[in-house]
């Protein structure tokens, strides 16, 4: 009886701790979003923000808050959450803690698809570009895994090598297309800069359902993904339909990455860093990994976006540069640990 009570107590404490972690993450996300609304070249009070959002009187303050601050305060957390969840999925699928939508070339593939869709097929609509981004991410994952598998096995480093190579290739093609299509350069640079600034709010409304579908798919797969953290033989002997789960999970990754790229362009390394934070907080079960990665991804991206306004104040730094620096350091640390 004592043993049962003790076990129960321990279980209860663990779930209580997770509850507090989630509560803390939600509060932190709210705070960072408020920071995003109030802080910047000009600092607004919470009262001014509230006034601008509830009753837009057409004043300059209201226009800046509702037209410029609000979109980025919504797009940054949504894109961060999407990339965080995509990172969790990619790291599990490749059984590789240094994998991410970036190191697998998915961001680059999505960007290339957006550029091709615009220049070659004349796609202009946001829906069309989102679809192109998701398709590009999906095709890239097929190509990268295909090439890595063809080169003899899906070893973690091999996948990343193929992914990084593909990413440089995609970047090169994008550069070539942009150089020869000056007319569209301005519009496309908007996509490719990897930033949350100057995004219309329609991008948020457009990206939200795609992220929700991708997240729902990921959560439905979460128990199977738990089992797929073990080797293929073990997962298969537990009864996991490996091919189906992999296929659907890559679809989820593509939707999440594609949505993030369609909203913010390729914001570097968010999907690499965030899963590590999530696992530290809540452990390895995917239900929790995904939830914590969504929240901490939202916080991380929003904080980076706020930081971008101040690192070289009064000029605004590209947020992708900030996440790239943090991500590159994290990647180096992880690589050194792996090689050690």
């Amino acid at each position, binding site marked *: 009886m004592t043993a049962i009570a003790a076990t129960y107590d321990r279980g209860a404490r663990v779930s209580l701790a997770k509850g507090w972690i989630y509560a803390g993450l939600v509060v932190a996300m709210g705070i960072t979003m408020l920071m995003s609304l109030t802080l910047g070249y000009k600092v607004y009070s919470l009262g001014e923000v509230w006034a601008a959002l509830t009753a837009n009187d057409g004043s300059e303050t209201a226009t800046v808050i509702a037209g410029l601050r609000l979109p980025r305060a919504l797009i940054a957390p949504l894109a961060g959450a999407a990339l965080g969840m995509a990172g969790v999925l990619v790291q599990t699928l490749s059984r590789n803690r240094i994998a991410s939508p970036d190191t697998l070339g998915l961001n680059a593939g999505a960007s290339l698809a957006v550029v091709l869709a615009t220049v070659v097929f004349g796609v202009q609509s946001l829906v069309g570009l989102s679809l192109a981004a998701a398709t590009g991410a999906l095709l890239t994952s097929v190509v990268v895994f295909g090439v890595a598998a063809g080169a003899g096995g899906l070893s973690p480093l091999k996948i990343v090598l193929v992914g990084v190579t593909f990413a440089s290739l995609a970047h090169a093609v994008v550069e070539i297309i942009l150089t020869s299509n000056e007319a569209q350069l301005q519009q496309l640079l908007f996509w490719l800069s990897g930033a949350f600034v100057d995004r219309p709010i329609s991008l948020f409304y457009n990206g939200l359902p795609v992220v929700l579908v991708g997240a729902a798919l990921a959560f439905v797969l979460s128990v199977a993904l*738990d*089992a797929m953290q*073990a080797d293929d*033989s*073990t997962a298969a002997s*537990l*009864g*996991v339909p490996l091919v189906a789960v992999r296929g659907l999970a890559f679809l989820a990754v593509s939707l999440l990455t594609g949505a993030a790229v369609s909203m913010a362009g390729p914001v570097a390394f968010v999907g690499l860093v965030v899963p590590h934070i999530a696992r530290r907080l809540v*452990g390895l079960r995917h239900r929790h990994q995904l939830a914590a990665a969504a929240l901490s991804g939202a916080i991380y991206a929003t904080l980076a976006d706020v930081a971008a306004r101040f690192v070289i104040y009064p000029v605004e730094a590209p947020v992708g540069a900030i996440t790239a620096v943090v991500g590159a350091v994290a990647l180096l640390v992880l690589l050194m640990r792996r090689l050690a």
Partner: protein
Amino acid sequence: MDDQLASRIEVKALTLSYGNDVVLDALSLPIPKGQITVLAGPNGCGKSTLLRAIRRLHAPQSGQVLLDAEDISKLNGKALGRKIGLLAQSPSAPQDMTVEELVRLGRYPHQAMLQPWSPGDDAAVAAAMAGTGVDTMKHRRIGSLSGGQLQRAWIAMVLAQETDTICLDEPVNHLDMAHQLDCLELVTKLNKEQGRTIVLVLHDLNLAARYADQLVFVAGGKVRERGAPEAMMRADLIAEVFSVNAEIITDPVHQRPICIPHRRA
């Protein structure tokens, strides 16, 4: 364990090849319920493949594996996962996974999509950890465990599956002598106390003879001979199957045959 849960497995004329290499050649083998069957044979004889085919990890070209007289190819993955557990050779999982998280994976075939984790799942995980003695280290990361502890954690994972048949592919491969005995005593306990049917692949012939109820020599993709260890441990048979000239004596402690190899035949 409820006797009705115990199943009887029968391998019938199973042929399995990788490309042009025929690994199993119309192999037939009954696996008696409630017994320990040990598959032994030289490297590349197909014993691991046979074990994996019993859990349907390889699709055969022809032949069947029957479970309670039903072809396992007709069962879905989760249903089979509730009947036959397999501990793969050198299984792997993330180093920062905790023992408890690892053991929980064994509940996969019992969970339906979106169905919440049940008290029954908790009980199975707790029982599996207690039965293998890893309950005291359930919050430790598996990367911090010794080889013997890690193997017990993996066995707990398979136990949490609550299958009446458990297959283990070379479970004592990387373990020292003490942990080899630990592991096989644990397996024997599961067999004797819970009536689980055990199928093992073992390289060490003396361990095989000591723990097997049915010892099976696999050679050239076929069952060369099978029977009680006393009947199987014969110099002529061992010379033929393993290409080793050996002397067979009886272990004075356990009264089981032991093979003392002299030289290559």
